[in-house]
């Protein structure tokens, strides 16, 4: 501390005067007050330090009231701290030393850096959250579309199974054109070339043929055909398939 500015020193009473700045923005008022204080300084010389402090709060379109404190032979690099009275107010003047200013700047930079890191973190979290939300919504949409298709397929399958069950209940198994064509093919393959077949009948899974003459219409003796006891017409006999597995009902 400078000898002249030891706060505890008795009789330490710097020269002060009130300066008024016209209505303006606060920083303009402060600059104007500082200029005014320097230009109208009652002290001259290079060793005069002028400190300006606001006395009243800033208000729109109101002049600002400042106090100018004049100090001589003060080395501000070492810091200065004292109290001064002006217009009935006690002002605490604290002019930090160079080291304090550096420390303050460092603290501010760290706080700013910390704040920046937090801000970047928050933005990243929000971005990740929104990205994940979009991805999840997209995945849900795809799952819903797939499930919709599967539901339709399942519904078709369920109906087909229900229909199959109902048809089975009606006893129409093997009552198909396929079955009749298959029986006709079997007859064609086993047919005796000399046999004269007048008609082929298929009835509820059984088949029969009308044949001219009493000889069997097929060459393969393993094909079970039963001859009717009486001819259906003169010289025409009915041969009925005796298979047991082809009958539907």
């Amino acid at each position, binding site marked *: 501390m400078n000898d002249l500015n030891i706060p505890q020193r008795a009789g330490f009473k710097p020269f002060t005067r009130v300066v008024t700045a016209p209505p303006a923005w606060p920083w303009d008022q402060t600059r104007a007050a500082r200029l005014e204080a320097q230009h109208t300084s009652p002290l001259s010389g290079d060793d005069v330090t002028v400190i300006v402090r606001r006395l009243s709060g800033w208000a729109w379109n109101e002049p600002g009231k400042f106090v100018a404190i004049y100090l001589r032979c003060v080395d501000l690099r070492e810091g200065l701290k004292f109290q001064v009275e002006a217009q009935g107010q006690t002002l605490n003047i604290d002019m930090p030393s160079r080291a304090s200013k550096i420390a303050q700047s460092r603290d501010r930079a760290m706080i700013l850096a910390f704040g920046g890191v937090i801000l970047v973190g928050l933005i990243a979290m929000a971005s990740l959250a929104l990205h994940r939300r979009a991805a999840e919504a997209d995945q849900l949409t795809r799952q819903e579309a797939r499930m919709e298709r599967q539901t339709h397929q399942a519904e078709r399958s369920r109906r087909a199974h229900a229909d199959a069950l109902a048809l089975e209940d009606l006893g129409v198994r093997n009552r198909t054109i*396929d079955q009749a064509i298959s029986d006709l093919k079997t007859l064609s393959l086993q047919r005796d070339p000399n046999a004269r077949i007048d008609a082929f009948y298929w009835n509820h899974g059984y088949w029969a043929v009308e044949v001219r003459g009493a000889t069997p219409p097929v060459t393969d003796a393993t094909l079970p055909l039963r001859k009717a006891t009486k001819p259906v017409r003169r010289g025409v006999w009915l041969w009925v398939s005796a298979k047991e597995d082809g009958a539907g009902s």
Partner: protein
Amino acid sequence: MIDDFLSSRKRPQKTSMEVPLLAWGVAALLALVGLGGLFLSRPTDARARLAALETQSKSIRSATDARGDLNAYPAGSVCAGQIDEALRNQLTNALMNSGLKVEALDIADAGQAGDRFPLRAYKLSLKGSGSYEEAMRSLQVLRRYQPRLFLDTLSLRNQTSSVDLDVEGRLFCRWKS
């Protein structure tokens, strides 16, 4: 300039509680943002949509347990609704294209088939004549027709230069789903 402005205001006194309060504030803010992120990371209707998917999944699983022999009665054996004019015309045209001379083709509503299932029967009767090959082609037409024709009787009679084909069978339609 900002310093000047700030200095124009009354500065709060620094206390030893300032740093811990700031730390608490940051922690609270992070927790809040974390919770907000968790909330934001899921679509608002995700729960309802997942529940709907689960319901659909159960429904699909139950469908796979359904009984019924699809080998004997493949899908399409039964029509939905009823045999309408379009289906009749489709069959008539296909039979005509087979070359068979169609003398009569009738599809008549025979009422409900059985008591247990919602099936409606339609009785089909076809009379036609032509060569053996034409008769076989017409049988192939009937074989491919959907709904499937369940055959009751079929007769193929030899005439001097042609065959007579008589077919009687039933078609089934599901009259309610």
